[in-house]
């Protein structure tokens, strides 16, 4: 017994005692003093000492109900002379309390067991069952236990029937129904077994049992939702199956409720008007944004005629979603899988996500599209000026979508259209992380068409927001690029090249990607200016270009786009060694990609459409020359850049030529000093200009050992070692 249940029990007991002071005061005296633990204790204690209990059954200090319950739990006492008398007395006690105040879940648990275990006679069982009226709830376990007694066959048919009727009447009081839902098969089998309903749902049961109203009710309910399964003709005329007068428990339930909770403000019928029970909810009848997973609605099934019970029961038909638990199951049943009645439910089910990922049925995707578009729009807290209270819910919803997108490695079209609609209204703050992730999952499409829809709006926010926002945008643009590249690289190998009507050729696709890269180039140049060449920002920008420089080799796509000068020179002149290192790495990868492309061009002359223009090579060579000139040969900016010597003189750096080489470069000078201190710790002065010749090579090894791997790759690939300065 969980502590929670115990609390309920004791509360119920207390309530019992409070409202019944005009009734059985002698039996209940002193009960109010009992607290939770005491009552529990005394119950246990009683079990240990049965003799005491039976001997002093009418002990005023004890709860008569508890004694009675214990009595029934123990079973009939064979030796007792006045057996029937005691039994009758306890039964009366239980009945009185139950009909008046109802029973706590524990009481019901015990007594239900007693009634179905067949310890007592059928008449007693019937009386016990009839007074199983809950004060609050009925625990699901109790019902499951009770059902298990039915299997043992200890109780008579009439008791079973009564139990079923009780179960139907009390159904709404059961606290959970998961376990019970699993028992339906058993219920119907059991009913069949008892010839309550015969094998082919025919009239024989009615012959044997007569058309009992409650049976008719069950059958008609069944017929309602699965008309093909029940061939019995049931009177279509008005009929009250569970008549109020006939329903043993209904009035009792009402009375108990009224006594325990005070009279309802209005008659019961009115109280059940949905207007009072459910105040207008933001969401119709659903407690979560994403619909629950249900197999296709039965309405589709009932359209199909000629379906028999055996068809239905044999699994020739479709495979119910509720049973889908593992990937192998999915594979075995993929041809006959029942689809959810509301496609939105797939978001919470990874197996079904697998399914919709490979299914070619357009209507499945359309259903998901419509549902997701509308839900996003309705739930979005800024799009419809919704209440900001629901912000958390919306964030969670977006997280679920993003998880699904990551799982599928593909964006949803609905999210794309949602971005179109909501981005112009976004404040750049609300759900920022989620929103930017949605951007990175925009499905591949024509960039110039998308620019006014997404990127122009994003740009406005970008320029007016903090550096952290800018960094996040670069991060998500990097992911967007990566997603597009992955999609294109796999798609190209699966002919036909593209199933989007927007881009029909590889050239068109490459154009779109290159436009994205150029857009980011423009964005990053401007951002660097706005943020005073922030190193932090530059890291994010270079991360983007780490993807860009490797497109040809990593994704096997014919595209090389270089970074704009604003980024290149900012990185080259950066004070931060890790930026310089990253730049070197990127230059090294550009070189490898361009070399590979050149090689391919020479090999296959046919694929001329994707030859890179000589401009790309020229641009790269220009950057390379600048880098080698600065870092290695100490002849910086010999081409294309002229600085008036007077200006340099004024600035006090007339001798500037070597001031950007590996030793003097502001990002590396500290390395040079450390190198000297480490190698010649006894040296009196630190003279960095001494790093040349052999020392230069040692210095290089030192730099590499300090983790400047990008520099190492760059120097190994781009500089011939004959030219050590």
């Amino acid at each position, binding site marked *: 017994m969980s502590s929670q249940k115990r609390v309920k029990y004791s509360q119920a007991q207390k309530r019992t005692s409070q409202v019944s002071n005009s009734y059985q005061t002698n039996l209940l005296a002193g009960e109010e003093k009992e607290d939770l633990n005491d009552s529990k204790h005394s119950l246990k204690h009683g079990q240990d000492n049965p003799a005491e209990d039976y001997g002093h059954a009418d002990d005023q200090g004890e709860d008569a109900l508890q004694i009675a319950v214990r009595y029934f739990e123990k079973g009939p006492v064979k030796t007792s002379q006045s057996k029937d008398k005691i039994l009758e007395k306890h039964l009366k006690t239980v009945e009185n309390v139950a009909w008046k105040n109802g029973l706590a879940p524990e009481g019901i648990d015990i007594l239900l067991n007693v009634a179905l275990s067949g310890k007592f006679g059928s008449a007693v069982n019937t009386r016990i069952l009839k007074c199983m009226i809950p004060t609050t709830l009925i625990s699901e376990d109790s019902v499951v236990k009770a059902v298990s007694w039915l299997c043992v066959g200890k109780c008579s048919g009439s008791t079973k029937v009564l139990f079923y009727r009780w179960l139907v009447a009390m159904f709404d009081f059961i606290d959970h129904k998961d376990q019970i839902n699993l028992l339906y098969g058993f219920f119907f089998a059991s009913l069949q077994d008892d010839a309550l309903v015969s094998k082919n749902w025919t009239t024989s049961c009615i012959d044997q049992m007569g058309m009992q109203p409650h049976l008719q009710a069950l059958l008609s309910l069944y017929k309602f939702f699965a008309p093909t399964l029940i061939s019995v003709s049931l009177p279509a005329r008005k009929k*009250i199956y569970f008549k109020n007068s006939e*329903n043993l428990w209904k009035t009792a339930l009402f009375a108990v409720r009224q006594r325990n909770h005070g009279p309802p403000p209005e008659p019961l019928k009115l109280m059940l008007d949905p207007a009072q029970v459910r105040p207008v909810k933001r969401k119709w009848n659903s407690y979560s944004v994403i619909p629950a997973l249900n197999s296709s609605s039965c309405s589709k099934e009932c359209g199909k005629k000629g379906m028999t019970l055996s068809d239905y029961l044999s699994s020739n038909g479709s495979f119910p979603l509720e049973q889908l638990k593992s990937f192998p199951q999915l594979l075995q049943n993929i041809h006959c899988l029942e689809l959810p009645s509301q496609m939105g439910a797939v978001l919470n089910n990874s197996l079904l996500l697998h399914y919709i990922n490979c299914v070619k049925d*357009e*209507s499945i995707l*359309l259903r998901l599209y419509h549902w997701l578009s509308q839900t996003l729009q309705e739930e979005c807290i800024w799009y419809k000026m919704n209440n900001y209270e629901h912000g958390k819910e919306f964030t969670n919803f977006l997280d679920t979508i993003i998880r699904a997108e990551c799982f599928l490695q593909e964006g949803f079209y609905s999210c794309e259209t949602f971005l179109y609609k909501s981005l112009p209204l976004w404040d750049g703050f609300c759900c920022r992380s989620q929103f930017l992730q949605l951007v990175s999952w925009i499905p591949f499409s024509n960039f110039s068409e998308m620019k006014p829809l997404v990127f122009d709006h994003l740009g406005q926010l970008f320029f007016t927001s903090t550096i952290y926002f800018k960094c996040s945008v670069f991060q998500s643009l990097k992911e967007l690029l990566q997603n597009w590249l992955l999609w294109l690289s796999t798609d190209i190998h699966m002919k036909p090249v593209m199933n989007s009507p927007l881009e029909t050729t590889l050239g068109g696709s490459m154009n779109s990607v290159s436009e994205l890269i150029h857009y980011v180039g423009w964005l990053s140049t401007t951002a660097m200016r706005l943020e005073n060449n922030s190193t932090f920002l530059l890291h994010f920008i270079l991360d983007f270009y780490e993807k860009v420089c490797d497109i040809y080799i990593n994704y096997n796509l014919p595209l090389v786009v270089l970074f704009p000068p604003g980024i290149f020179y900012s990185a080259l002149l950066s004070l931060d060694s890790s930026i310089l290192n990253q730049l070197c790495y990127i230059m090294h990868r550009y070189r490898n990609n361009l070399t590979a492309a050149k090689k391919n061009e020479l090999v296959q002359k046919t694929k001329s459409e994707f030859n890179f223009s000589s401009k790309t090579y020229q641009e790269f060579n220009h950057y390379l020359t600048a880098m080698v000139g600065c870092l290695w040969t100490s002849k910086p900016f010999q081409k294309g850049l002229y600085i008036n010597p007077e200006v340099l003189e004024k600035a006090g750096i007339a001798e500037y030529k070597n001031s950007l080489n590996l030793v003097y470069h502001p990002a590396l000078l500290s390395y040079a000093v450390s190198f000297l201190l480490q190698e010649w710790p006894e040296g009196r002065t630190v003279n960095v200009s001494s790093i040349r010749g052999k020392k230069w090579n040692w210095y290089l090894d030192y730099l590499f050992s300090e983790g400047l791997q990008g520099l190492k790759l760059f120097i190994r690939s781009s500089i011939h070692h004959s030219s050590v300065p």
Partner: protein
Amino acid sequence: MDSYDTPESTPRHSASSRLKDYFIGATPLQKRLESVRKQTSFIPTPPRRKIPQCSQLQEDNDPQKVAFLLNKQWTLYSLTPLYKFSYTNLKEYSRLLSAFIAAEKQKGLAVEVGEDFNIKVTFSTLLGMKGTQRDPEAFLVQILSKSQLPSENREHKVLWTGWFCCIFGDSLLETVSEDFTCVPLFLANGAETNTAIVGTWFQKTFDCYFSPLAINAFNLSWMAAMWTACKMDQYMAATEFLWSVPCSPQSLDISYAIHPEDAKALWDSVHKTPGEVTQEEVDLFMDCLYSHFHRHFKIHLSATRLVRVSTSVASAHTDGKIKILCHKYLIGVLAYLTELAIFQID
């Protein structure tokens, strides 16, 4: 929404077939996406709409049913296409929906089925309620109470009514496959709880989605202009506008009623293109009203929010409530509402 991009004067079917050619081989989903893109990306060339013409109801309509729809206040919803809805199963749907309603209303009590619960649900088509032949048939759902007395009075009381329609819905019809039925506009009259139950049932059964359809001030101005432009034999009500000024502690409402003939005269003075309404004309019409008001009360109505428009044709509230008064222009009013609904579900 096509009508934003293409002049209304182009016959609809030719516009759609052009679209079709463009998208040969394209899937419905791609068409859908393309339509959204188009709609969001291009600032529409100043839109033009037809002035609603005299009764465009198809001849096979049921006058009694049409009359039933008039003079009632309807709450508007947009609705995504219904999956596997079939007009041949309406009887079946009545049965299932009434069972569902009974179950919903009985929540918290022991099971009771059958006639103990005194309601009945009916589905019926609204013949002739369409703009073009391609539009799917409109249909009506009603919840009726059954009188408990088995007396001669067999008239059932209508507890709740809702109807679904699609008037000139080509732009939506283009973008779905045949498994779907497009009735993007849903109108409900009756307790909101019933709307919720019926809506929930539809959502569960046909995998669709209902969203409340609000009408913003921009669209209300359009309605004001289009409805003022309608030729009326006889005016039933004054033309009235309601503006709301958000101020504390209580918002201030400004009501502005004009004699309908004066409104029509004003419209005629700003109206140039015969048979059509343009954005320019709408703006001009509203500006004239504003300046007139300002001259008298020194209040700039353009700085407030238009929340309601009532004319002899229909009246509409920004909350998404509408009352159609004039039988003649029923289809015209619904066509614009369908357009707004499609815009919302795009």
